[in-house]
């Protein structure tokens, strides 16, 4: 029996290895045609003219993700602090499961909300003709990253020993000073890990950005520009591209870059949580 279970365990390594291998082999086939330097340092992504520069797509991904973090980080940490320090039990018992359920909402449904709700709101507030842009994507990705940020940072805040708070009150500090000077610094690594995990989720999201950001391949000028992310570009072009062409391999090369970025983000989060666990 042991062997059967062990094989299941090894299977996971095989899948991750397989994914990495698949990305690398196809990317190598691409780099045989297009030098990696050109791929990584030029902005034009025009496969029909043989131009394969990732920078515009990368900028799209980074702009939308950064925008999402600007919205989700303060809101998420604020909510987590409120839930763990101020909220009454019934508020917590309602809001926490609701936030967890938000994490389960399919990404197409969030994208749909982007088209029918967020887009008209952006159009009327910013007085622009098109509401499908980086801002829309950022708002939606913030919604998708919030559950992770709230749950993980709330866990971190709750893990701060009660003695710390008591000691601070004992010295005459009030609740806010205690929170600011004692609780948050103690929970800091966990909160950072929460932000990194939320960011990982936003970076790799495909359907919401595909539906809500407008998908124009032009280097983004600002938050109101329509942008195309790496993920959306793969989703759009993989369906039309002839198999085993340079363009086909090029899409795998962009996926490899995405894989490396999200791996780095998740790896950092994991290192931080492992570090915290050692002290508990």
């Amino acid at each position: 029996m042991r062997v059967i279970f062990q094989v299941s365990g090894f299977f996971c390594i095989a899948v991750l290895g397989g994914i990495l291998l698949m990305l690398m082999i196809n990317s190598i086939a691409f780099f045989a045609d297009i030098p990696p330097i050109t791929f990584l340092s030029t902005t034009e992504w025009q496969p029909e003219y043989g131009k394969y520069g990732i920078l515009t797509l990368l900028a799209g991904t980074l702009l939308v993700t950064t925008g999402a973090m600007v919205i989700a980080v303060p809101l998420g940490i604020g909510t987590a602090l409120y839930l763990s320090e101020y909220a009454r039990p019934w508020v917590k018992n309602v809001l926490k499961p609701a936030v967890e359920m938000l994490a389960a909402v399919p990404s197409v449904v969030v994208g749909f909300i982007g088209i029918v709700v967020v887009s008209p709101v952006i159009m009327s507030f910013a007085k622009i003709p098109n509401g499908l842009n980086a801002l829309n994507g950022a708002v939606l990705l913030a919604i998708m990253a919030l559950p992770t940020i709230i749950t993980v940072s709330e866990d971190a805040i709750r893990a701060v020993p009660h003695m710390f708070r008591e000691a601070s009150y004992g010295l005459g500090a009030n609740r806010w000073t205690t929170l600011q000077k004692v609780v948050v610094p103690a929970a800091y690594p966990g909160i950072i890990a929460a932000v990194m995990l939320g960011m990982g989720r936003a970076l790799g999201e495909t359907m919401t950005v595909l539906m809500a950001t407008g998908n124009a391949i032009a280097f983004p000028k600002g938050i109101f520009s329509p942008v195309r992310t790496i993920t959306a570009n793969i989703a759009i072009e993989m369906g039309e591209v002839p198999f085993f062409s340079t363009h086909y391999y090029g899409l795998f090369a962009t996926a490899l870059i995405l894989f490396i970025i999200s791996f780095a983000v998740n790896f950092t989060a994991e290192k931080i949580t492992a570090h915290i666990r050692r002290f508990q």
Partner: protein
Amino acid sequence: MKTNFTEIIPQTLLLLCALIMAALLISLAGYLLLKGGAVLSLSFLTNIPTNGMTAGGIFTPIMGTVALTLITALVSLPVGIGAAVYLSEYAADNRLTQIIRAAIRNLAGVPSIIFGLFGLTLFVQGLGLGSSLMASGLTLGLLSLPYVITTTEEAMRTVPQLMRESALALGATRWEVTRDIILPAATPGIATGAILSLSRAAGETAPILFTGATFYLSGSSIGLKDEFMALPYHLYMLVTQHQAIEQVQPLALGTACVLLLLVLLLNTAAITIRRKYVKQYQP
């Protein structure tokens, strides 16, 4: 204590964050349930799409999603539970085990579109399954694997060490302990995790984009080697790829509402099982 002023301002700000969050949840669910709920009817659920998808219901995508989720379950549950049993009951705490754990954590962080590419190269092209229900199901099976493993292992860990040791002391083998003691005790927890993992897989779109999902099927027959319609992909197509935007808007709202209800239902089921059956062993 200092003046109340320094207390009240930050407290209000934090309350504001929580209120925004609550408003967000209520408006999102309210919008979809009210507007989409108006479209829902028995015939919407049981009719196939007609008139170039501008009328009719969503029976075909529902059946596609059900079939797809069944395959996902058949792939991810046996392998996932097997791996969790290995990690929780058999594996020594060594380098190899750490590598397996790291692989599982990293798999959970791989963007879903990359799973789609993997499914395309391995199942559609490599194994020659073509763009099919089978290829998509296998892809989603791999995607769900890390969630199934993590939740199963967690459920198995709540079974007290004392029960394992007692059974071992009576002469039971590892396998007997797992089969007769650990798995029965952990079943509600495993079921909770399985439901959550599968509900997540059922809502995925990116991994099935190029592995088997299709825009439209005329019949409602389902075959492992055939392309299929799925609820999330159907919604995506209706809102972004359909020409008659005004006409399909109600259908899209209905589909979104069904997807949301599905998720709420499965999550509530999972939470209920957890509350009712998961034993809290006190040390």
